[in-house]
């Protein structure tokens, strides 16, 4: 069991180390990238199967008993997210073969991407609050370099904003961890949950809860803390944007879910109401922002924000059905967002630009690409039979069940605005006739070999198919996420797994 929990971290880490050694041989690095991501995916699937059959798995690193050492723990939520991370990593690595310029590829792109995957999975699997901080930093430093790799002016500007806001949030995180340690004398999340239950210091507890809400809110890009995201996510190459959009904000959402289902559940009237307000604002403002943008990648960046609102809504509603629907939403959104960013890269290659005002007429020349864009885009808007419909239906039903009509209304309005935003992007890029002086297919696409084209189209096609399959045959996955939601609401399983029976 202990091996199974460490493998999703060790395999990509090993691949990253080997890729560093193979610095001059990009071809070797490429295949190490595939091996690392594939290893993570396989280990994730094995972990998910083990957790589903045998209950929550925990292992104590170095065999130090629970509150003293560092614990790795996987419940259904963590295990599912590890699988998604591996899958997105694999898709992006394969796309990078053809979709990333050789200069960036030879400056450490693959090792950095693998380290990013390690950091993300570490954050999902750790059972220790300070260790979570460390995994965040691992993830951040890799993302800093990926964002700035290439050193174009826009990238550097985006990087300054991204680095600043993330370092501020890290400092707040560290402060919150310090205060929590001062209050309780422990940092193990399960042990914290037990001690916070008996602690009679509501003011300090709420202070820490709010600090952590801000910290993870910044990482997840919730309203009103999201401004860094549309200022930075569209600056790096699309492969980097795709992995960021698919996974990074989800780590923030994961941390919010973990902390606000396990640690701060005494005063849900205050904390979870606040989370619902934040969720409503995030959904609507994100979608509305997307309508106003001219750059395809910035349209998608704002839709990333909007989607975070739906996941946080599930946390705010705080029922098993809502958390389960939120997890399903998270799964389909990770896939759809990664796909859309990858498709936007293909749009630039065949249409010459990311700018909607200079694109047009692509439906006439590239029908297949138009389909690849519209399917995940409709999933974001929640149109059946795509996966987004099932996710939104689940959230709306959960919201109606606890009579949060205002929030449900906000979710539906945001959905309609999202539809407007993606329909506008699609009709401008694909449907309308090409404008005068529209740029044409880029030389780099014409020069791409058949193998490079396959490497770009194959992962996109596979992910689009997955979006449809997740929508049409949703039930098995929905069963899984609902089980995960029920597990989150009943912390005793998590506490038993980490601390043993004798707490």
């Amino acid at each position, binding site marked *: 069991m202990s091996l199974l929990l460490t493998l999703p971290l060790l395999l990509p880490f090993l691949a990253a180390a080997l890729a560093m050694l193979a610095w001059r041989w990009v071809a070797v690095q490429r295949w190490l990238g595939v091996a690392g991501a594939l290893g993570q995916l396989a280990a994730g699937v094995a972990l998910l199967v083990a957790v589903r059959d045998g209950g929550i798995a925990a292992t104590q690193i170095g065999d130090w008993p629970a509150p003293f050492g560092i614990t790795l723990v996987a419940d259904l939520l963590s295990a599912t997210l590890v699988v998604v991370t591996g899958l997105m990593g694999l898709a992006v690595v394969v796309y990078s073969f053809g979709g990333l310029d050789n200069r960036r590829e030879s400056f450490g792109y693959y090792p950095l991407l693998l380290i990013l995957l390690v950091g993300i999975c570490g954050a999902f699997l750790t059972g220790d609050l300070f260790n979570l901080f460390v995994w965040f930093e691992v993830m951040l430093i890799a993302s800093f370099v990926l964002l700035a790799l290439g050193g174009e002016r826009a990238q550097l500007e985006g990087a*300054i904003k991204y680095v600043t806001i993330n370092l501020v949030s890290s*400092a707040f995180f*560290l402060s919150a961890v*310090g205060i929590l*340690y001062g209050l309780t004398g422990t940092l193990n999340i399960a042990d914290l949950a037990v001690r916070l239950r008996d602690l009679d210091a509501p003011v300090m507890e709420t202070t820490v809860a709010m600090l952590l809400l801000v910290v993870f809110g910044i990482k997840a890009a919730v309203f009103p803390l999201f401004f860094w995201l549309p200022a930075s996510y569209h600056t790096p190459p699309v492969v980097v944007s795709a992995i960021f959009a698919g996974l990074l904000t989800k780590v923030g959402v994961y941390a919010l879910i973990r902390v606000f289902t396990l640690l701060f559940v005494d005063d849900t009237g205050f904390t979870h109401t606040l989370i619902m307000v934040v969720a409503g604002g995030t959904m609507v403002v994100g979608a509305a922002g997307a309508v106003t943008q001219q750059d395809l990648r910035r349209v998608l960046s704002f839709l990333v924000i909007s989607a975070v609102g739906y996941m946080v809504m599930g946390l705010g509603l705080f029922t098993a059905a809502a958390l389960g629907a939120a997890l399903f939403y998270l799964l389909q959104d990770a896939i759809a967002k990664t796909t859309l960013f990858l498709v936007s890269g293909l749009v630039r290659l065949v249409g010459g630009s990311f700018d909607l005002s200079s694109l047009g007429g692509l439906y006439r020349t590239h029908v297949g690409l138009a389909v690849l864009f519209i399917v995940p885009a409709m999933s974001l808007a929640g149109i059946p039979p795509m996966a987004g419909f099932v996710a939104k239906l689940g959230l709306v039903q959960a919201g109606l069940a606890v009579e949060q009509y205002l929030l449900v209304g906000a979710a539906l309005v945001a959905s309609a605005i999202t539809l407007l935003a993606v329909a506008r992007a699609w009709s401008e890029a694909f449907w309308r006739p090409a404008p005068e002086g529209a740029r044409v297919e880029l030389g780099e696409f014409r020069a791409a070999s058949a193998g490079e084209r396959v490497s770009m189209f194959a992962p996109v096609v596979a992910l689009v198919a997955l979006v449809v399959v997740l929508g049409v045959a949703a039930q098995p996955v929905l069963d899984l996420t609902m089980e995960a939601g029920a597990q989150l609401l009943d912390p005793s399983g998590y506490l038993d797994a980490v601390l043993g029976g004798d707490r």
Partner: protein
Amino acid sequence: MELILSVLVGVLFAAALYTMLRRSIVRLAIGLTLLGHAANLLIFTVSGVTRRGPPIVGEGRTAPLIDSADPVPQALILTAIVISFGVLAFLLVLVKRVYQTVGSDDSDELVSTER
């Protein structure tokens, strides 16, 4: 001692935020460094400032011989310092590259991504 340290933490946070709000990105880097120091000193202060002995457990015993200080906050701070050292190194290179590319350290010049 706690009082002095608490005030110092407050002053450091305030100084960090003030420095970061200046337009110069060099000041931004200095502000972020100060912010890290403030957080570290906060951990040190809230976990109790004491003058006790080292937490060494003798052979065959289960508890330290003398009343000892808590080693965990120091380990946390040490880890945080090491991490912030690495991040700071990256940040300084980034600031230098931005200065070379933009030709100014004024953050108001960094507006082309906001269109």
